[in-house]
């Protein structure tokens, strides 16, 4: 038994997972409805810092109008809803800030079934909670992950083992997490926010 105990070392895996969680949490925001109390109401979802100059992506069902966002450094900013696509369940928010910790965006078409993915969000009021799972199936319009989500994860990042965002968590269907692929989100940003 002692041989088994010494051979077992979760160290590198543990610290890698912690580093991944920290990287993602920096680029994840809370989304709150405007106007309820001082800093707005309780978080209704999450969002991803897409560009350091203030662009944040979330789900359309999370941002139904102007909202406030809470950054990972605690700042509460009001956000303008600049684009919304209900069909793709995507929304773009702009906050008046620069130098935000933008997420690294991955290529969702390169995902392999079975690879590790993690989600960060605000499930059940927990702030920037991490859940881990596997890619269950990949489609052009949706990524399914064998991963436990809860309301409050919506709009938050689904990321691969390198911490690159490959999707925005949108729904729970039959116990599976369903995310909008990052390539779909890129297309949305390109189409909606042409300079």
């Amino acid at each position, binding site marked *: 038994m002692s041989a088994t105990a010494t051979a077992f070392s979760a160290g*590198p*895996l543990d*610290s*890698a*997972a912690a*580093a*991944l969680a920290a990287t993602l949490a920096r680029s994840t925001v809370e989304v709150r409805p405007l106007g309820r109390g001082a800093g707005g109401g309780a978080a209704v979802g999450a969002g991803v810092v897409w560009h350091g100059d203030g662009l944040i992506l979330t789900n359309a069902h999370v941002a139904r109008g102007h909202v406030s966002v809470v950054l990972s450094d605690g700042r509460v900013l009001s956000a303008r809803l600049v684009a919304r696509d209900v069909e793709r369940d995507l929304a773009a928010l702009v906050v008046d800030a620069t130098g935000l910790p933008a997420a690294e965006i991955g290529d969702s078409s390169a995902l*392999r*079934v*079975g*690879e*590790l993915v993690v989600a960060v969000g605000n499930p059940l009021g927990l702030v920037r909670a991490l859940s881990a*799972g*596997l*890619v*269950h*199936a990949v489609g052009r319009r949706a990524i*399914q992950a*064998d991963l436990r989500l809860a309301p409050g994860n919506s709009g938050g990042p689904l990321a*691969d*083992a*390198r*911490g690159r965002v490959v999707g925005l968590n949108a729904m729970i269907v*039959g*116990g*599976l997490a369903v995310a909008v692929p990052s390539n779909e989100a890129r297309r949305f940003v390109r189409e909606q926010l042409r300079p």
Partner: protein
Amino acid sequence: MEALLSLSNDLASAVERAAPAIVAVHARRLPSTGIHWRPGIVVTAEHTVRTEEDITVTTSDGRSLAARLAGRDPGTDLAVLRVEGLTAPTASLGDDAALRVGHMVLALGYGPRVSWGVISALGPRWRSGRGGEIDRLVRLDLVLYPGFSGGPLVDATGRVVGLNTSGLAHETRLAVPGITVSRVMDELLRQGHVSRGYLGLGMQPVRLPDPLRAQLGLPGDTGLIVVTVAPDGPAARAGVLLGDVLVGLGGEPVSDLDDVQAHLGAGRVGAALTALVIRAGARAELRITVGEQPRRRT
């Protein structure tokens, strides 16, 4: 993050290694999953086979092939299909005896789709609620999504160590270990069903009065009272009567139905068993030739 990345790559590679040997089985309204176990032979979960005719399988590269039901065993929830023209690779089989509680495992469904979890418990040989002998208890902490029953349990290297099913125990995800799949498959291919020993008796436990135990020198405090005797069954032919109390079989004491079942496993059909019964307050010995369980249509 290198450690995480290499784990992630290993898991995705495990899926890619196992996926070509998976088929979708169309034998009910919604497909289930099957494993190409030996060339031309597919195994799936018996409870997902609702029709015995016009069964087809779809391979991982999208081909649809006709399948014939070679046999089914509700006891172990296994059904075996013969599929002509199946050229896909067969499953690369791992050693289910090497599984440990806590091992990371994958369940695969046709598609491929995947579910991730751990071995949550292991146990010795057990008997399912429908009388099947399963060589090892393998309990899973993972989700079996719709259509996953009949699919492979895959270890972290992509080798198949069992067949997943939600049909063997209520609310519990289990895998039938590979050793059981191979054993039952042999029997199904040979004769289309799994033989189980049969006495033709209905019995229930009864407490034995202490004076009787002392008088007859019986070790246990319970026996099994015979409440039904199948006409012309093995026990009836041996002379067992309604009201006899069975206290021993094959020289060993019996106190519950599991003790009896232990004498009726695979390969016992045709064997002679000495039954020790209490009849009218005295010991009596009877020779029963174990018969074969009549098959129920499912």
